[in-house]
């Protein structure tokens, strides 16, 4: 399988690997995929009171393209509002990394991870407001 230079770069030097405090009310977590399918992505975002993503961390069990997709989105997420984050499309990820057709699902998974993390933070915010 031939990987693009950008995939190899993210794979060799993944950005923002790690975890944030999942109990922090400002941290949203999205975990998608399943071990049996060969991919699990965990994405955590920290959102400030202005709704801007201050930090993003990931861990990924998966192929090089899955690792690169999640590494790339952590870079993109920082500084974005959660609404902007929600609007990120898998096609943009696939294009940036020049993913071959068989690896498009990795970018889909990364988009799903963003949506899951945003949903989690929104749920936490809602809980905070109603509390």
């Amino acid at each position, binding site marked *: *399988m031939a*990987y693009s230079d950008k995939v190899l770069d993210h*794979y060799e030097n*993944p950005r923002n*690997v790690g*975890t944030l405090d999942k109990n922090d009310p400002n941290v949203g977590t999205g*975990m*998608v*995929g*399943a*071990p*049996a*399918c*060969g*991919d*699990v*992505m*965990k994405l955590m975002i920290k959102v400030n009171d202005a709704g801007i993503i201050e930090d993003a961390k990931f*861990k*990924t*069990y*998966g*192929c*090089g393209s*899955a*690792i690169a997709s999640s590494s790339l989105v952590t870079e993109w997420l920082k500084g974005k509002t959660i609404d902007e984050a929600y609007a990120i499309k898998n096609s943009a990820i696939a294009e940036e990394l020049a993913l071959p057709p068989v690896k498009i*699902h990795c970018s*889909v*998974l990364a988009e*799903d991870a963003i949506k899951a993390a945003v949903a989690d933070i929104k749920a936490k915010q809602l809980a905070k407001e109603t509390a």
Partner: protein
Amino acid sequence: MSASIEMPVLKDMFDENGLAKDTHGADAQPIYLDYSATTPVDPRVAAKMIPYITEHFGNPASRSHPYGWTAEKAVENAREEVAKLVGADPREIVWTSGATESNNLAIKGAANFYSEKGKHIITITTEHKAVIDAVRELERQGFTATYLDPEPNGLIDLEKFKAAIRPDTVLASVMFVNNEIGVIQDITAIGNICRENNIIFHVDAAQATGKVEIDLEKLPVDLMSFCAHKTYGPKGIGALYVRRKPRIRIEAQMHGGGHERGMRSGTLATHQIVGMGEAFKLAREEMVVENARILKLRNKLLHGLETMEEVYVNGDLEHRVPHNLNISFNYVEGESLIMAVKGIAVSSGSACTSASLEPSYVLRALGRSDELAHSSIRFSIGRFTTEEDIDYTINLMKSKIDKLRELSPLWEMFKDGIDLSKVQWAAH
């Protein structure tokens, strides 16, 4: 058409003295630990072959001039060498283009010839594709087949084998040494069961020559497949052993000039046959010493890797050729693992299926989960592997596995004491 091919990025593995080169420099080639996929041709074998593609180029079937005679003599010498390694009579050796053809010829040839005796075949789910697909083809022609699962250690339970036998069982095919996990089946015991039940017994020994002792004078085996390129010989040549006493008959699958006493027509590639003969001769002479050396290297590799948590050896360690180590690294995804270990040339499962991302069917037959099957690496050690290669490999594996686990949410959950089997995954 461009005249020159981009010569592969590989450098020769040997220097001018035929010694393995130091391969650990800055721009070194990956270390070759995929000897079960194919072996390099031993330089001594290559040296024997070359005269037969240059000056002695005759067609061995040309009976009218010395070009043909020299070729024929070389072919018969090689046949003797192949026979010697496996305790056979040279007249029991039929040349083929490789183990795939040998397996196809043995299985279809015997099943077709003896089909009036019965139309049931027994084989094992961990056989090479060439065996499985030949049996499937016979099923389409009206045969029935039982595909036995091995035990979790890769070995066959003899009682289960016996239980699979039917009155109309005509043929059984069991591989000597598994290509992925290296386990050695009890061919004597299975063969005896076949004899007692009047079943023709075929054994795929492609991975066995030079690794385990084979004595067909004693082994109750009727047909046995061999190839050269797993035993430091050239690609494109193999052989089928066809027992003479008691005589086993097969129906030819390739018809023509009637070469190989009618069992396999087609012009024989003299230099390749010569190469196979020389390779098998070297295997016979050097097997004991070589296997002891390789076992030491394998154990060193095993002990080095075992210091990591959550590694699982696939297949029985005791009934196993020294050359093979197949290990799963839990919580690491297989394809990223292959990317991580670029410094070594290894295989995840059999080379023949690695174009697809399916988990190894052999590991699944042992009952391994998909995740563990996906995260498996087959290390296969050979004649030119050095202790330094093994040291390098252990260090590389440790650092890369650490890095990938650092990235892995599954590893993190495992470390947090979460039972992954109880997690509700969003399957996609």
